[in-house]
């Protein structure tokens, strides 16, 4: 068994809610007085915030309710060369964990053992000074991130080339556009050479191409045997990049396992919470939604599909007697809210719509494999009259992920650079050998 690069043992961090200090000089004097007399000062002091919900005036200074466990008994190991994703809803302790591992703050209890040099990409451009030139800031930023001056000097040309701002390198960065600023900052961070890289949501900044470059650089870093801890809300990136994932929930480890499994369970739960109320049997303009399932070709409910898999979307609904035929509309949106596909139930035959008589009914739409590219997609369903009013709609009610387990041979980590990647037939129309005199021209 190898020595783990990062070993975390029962790590906990507590924050005191509300005011942190004893606020007035009187409080402070009281506090010291009680300490001098060897009593527990908290028992003799008025609560700091006059909270009327507190049982009585002399409630303990830090009641248990005022403590917030940002992390509670978190334990896991990370082996050398591994990329581990950390996921969880907001406030689940992801950032606190990284802050402790980068030693920005200290845990309340527990231990973490780290073998190797740590660098963090918590925010690009940290320590940039607006008055200094790009060149000076590269050195400034690099040393802040823990590089030696010699290392930076050696990589300087590479950094500048990566940032594509050679022309402006001797201009104060306050004159940079925000794009140039971010490019330079990321270029520095990307050329750090740590054993362990901690990444927190950097992918949330910058445009699409910048994000792609971020991911590409991370891949490259990982390929070089570095260990990466990757905190992100971008589940698609987590699945693509990480082999295993730690799911944090309310400061505790909820699940650790292969990226795909954990992410699937996580999305299932996240979606389950948000959609439960949507099917509570309310009639909306004579339509009542009763259920929506996303299944794979074998009929199992799932949220994660391979790019080759067919995706079956099944909709249960009830309807009262309608005066006019209606149709079902299925919209597939990307995580950025772009509608990538619109499938109507009368597509093949404009006359084919839902019948008008009252009934329960289950419909199924098959999204063929090799159509959507990898990514997270959200499903909306609605009922409308062709070229008419929308009767009822459920927006972004469920989501699913398309991931890729086989290599299609394109882009970064095999990802194709498009929203759709439809499998379209190719054929060679004709082919013939080169004639002798044309051979040499290549």
């Amino acid at each position, binding site marked *: 068994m190898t020595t783990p690069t990062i070993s975390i043992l029962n790590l906990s961090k507590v924050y005191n809610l509300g005011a942190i200090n004893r606020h007035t000089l009187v409080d402070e004097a009281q506090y010291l007085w009680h300490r001098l007399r060897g009593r527990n000062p908290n028992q003799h002091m008025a609560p700091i915030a006059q909270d009327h919900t507190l049982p009585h005036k002399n409630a303990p200074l830090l009641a248990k309710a005022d403590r917030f466990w940002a992390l509670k008994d978190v334990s896991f190991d990370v082996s050398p060369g*591994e990329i581990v994703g950390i996921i969880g809803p907001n406030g689940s302790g992801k950032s606190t964990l990284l802050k402790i591992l980068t030693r920005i*703050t200290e845990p309340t209890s527990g231990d973490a053992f780290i073998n190797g040099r740590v660098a963090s990409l918590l925010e690009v451009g*940290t320590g940039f000074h607006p008055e200094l030139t790009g060149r000076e800031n590269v050195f400034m930023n690099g040393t802040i991130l*823990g590089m030696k001056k010699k290392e930076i000097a050696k990589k300087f040309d590479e950094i500048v080339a990566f940032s594509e701002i050679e022309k402006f390198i001797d201009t104060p960065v306050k004159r940079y556009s925000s794009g140039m600023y971010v490019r330079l900052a990321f270029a520095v961070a990307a050329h750090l050479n740590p054993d362990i890289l901690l990444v927190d949501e950097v992918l949330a900044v910058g445009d699409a191409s910048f994000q792609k470059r971020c991911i590409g650089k991370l891949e490259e870093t990982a390929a070089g045997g570095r260990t990466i801890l990757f905190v992100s809300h971008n589940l698609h990136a987590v699945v693509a990049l990480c082999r295993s994932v730690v799911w944090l929930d309310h400061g505790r480890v909820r699940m650790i396992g292969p990226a795909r499994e954990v992410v699937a369970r996580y999305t299932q739960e996240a979606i389950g919470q948000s959609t439960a109320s949507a099917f509570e049997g309310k009639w909306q303009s004579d339509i009542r939604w009763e259920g929506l399932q996303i299944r794979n070709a074998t009929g199992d409910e799932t949220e994660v599909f391979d790019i080759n898999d067919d995706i079956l979307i099944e909709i249960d609904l009830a309807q009262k007697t309608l005066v006019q035929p209606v149709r079902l509309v299925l919209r597939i949106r990307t995580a950025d809210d772009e509608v990538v596909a619109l499938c109507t139930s009368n597509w093949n035959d404009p006359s084919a719509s839902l019948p008008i008589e009252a009934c329960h009914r289950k419909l199924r739409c098959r999204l063929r494999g090799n159509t959507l590219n990898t990514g997270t997609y959200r499903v909306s369903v609605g009922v409308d009259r062709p070229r008419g009013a929308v009767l009822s709609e459920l927006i972004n009610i469920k989501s699913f992920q398309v991931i890729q387990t086989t290599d299609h041979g394109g882009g970064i980590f095999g990802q194709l650079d498009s929203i759709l990647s439809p499998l379209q037939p190719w054929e060679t129309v004709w082919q013939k050998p080169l004639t002798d005199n044309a051979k040499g021209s290549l």
Partner: protein
Amino acid sequence: MTGTKSARIYLNTFNNSATQQLSNGSIPMQHTHIKANQAWWKIDWREILDYRDLLFMLVLRDLTSVYKQTILGPLWFVIQPLITSVVFTIIFGTVAKVPTDGIPQFIFYMSGTVFWNYFQGCMTHSASSLGSNTSLMTKVYFPRLIIPLSGAMSNLAYFGLNLIMFFGFYFYFLFFTTATMHPQVNLIFLPFLVLQCALLGIGIGLWVAAMTIKYRDLRFALPFLISIWMYATPIVYPASLVVNPAMRLVLCMNPMTFIVESVRFLLTGTGTVTLTCAMLSIGMTIFFLVTGLFLFNRAQRTFVDMI
């Protein structure tokens, strides 16, 4: 607990195949143990040494960024004490006629001002080290002590410029005027006084920095505490003016008294330096430096949670 335990086993077995040799060349592997309540008296000096390049860059940043887009540039470093000395000479020397023990007034005031400025520079830089770099410190880790140290070093550069200017005037008064000044052989000890000045400034500054995290009041109190302290130091008057023995002891309780008076004594042969005064001053410098370091070290560990 069982859940996490099996998870750990899982991760270990899962990744055995993925283990690769870290290709970090000759750099020895760094081991870090993060734990709660690290001892307040443990200061990792080797780590600070490892970050010396950052120290150097911060000093460079301080020196180059301050006077960018100014016409006079670094000249401002010498204009400030020069004008202060001129003002003191006019107000305290000419108008108020405060005696200067026979030292040329201008030299008297400037020697005090230059050393006081260095002390004040080190102190304010250390005092604001945690407060003025929060955006940096909430994002990256580096030994926090680097910032007060960089302040002492960049202020040393300003001080050097001031000292050059001062010696220009000093030699002028020494050789081209009838003023009677007797430079002492012990003048070679001047660098020790400079060092003491810096260490005292850092020590007090670290105290203030550690306290300011909890008591923001200090941020408002500091500027006028500094000016009160300045007038409690024999800068605009000689220590010899204080004859009451009790008051003289009080004056000696101020560690800056010894420094300023010693500087004057070494340069001109006039000045009130007693053994008690020296012991008190050096003792207090060590006390404030050591306790300041510990306080700061304790405060910096979790101050990010408090701001």
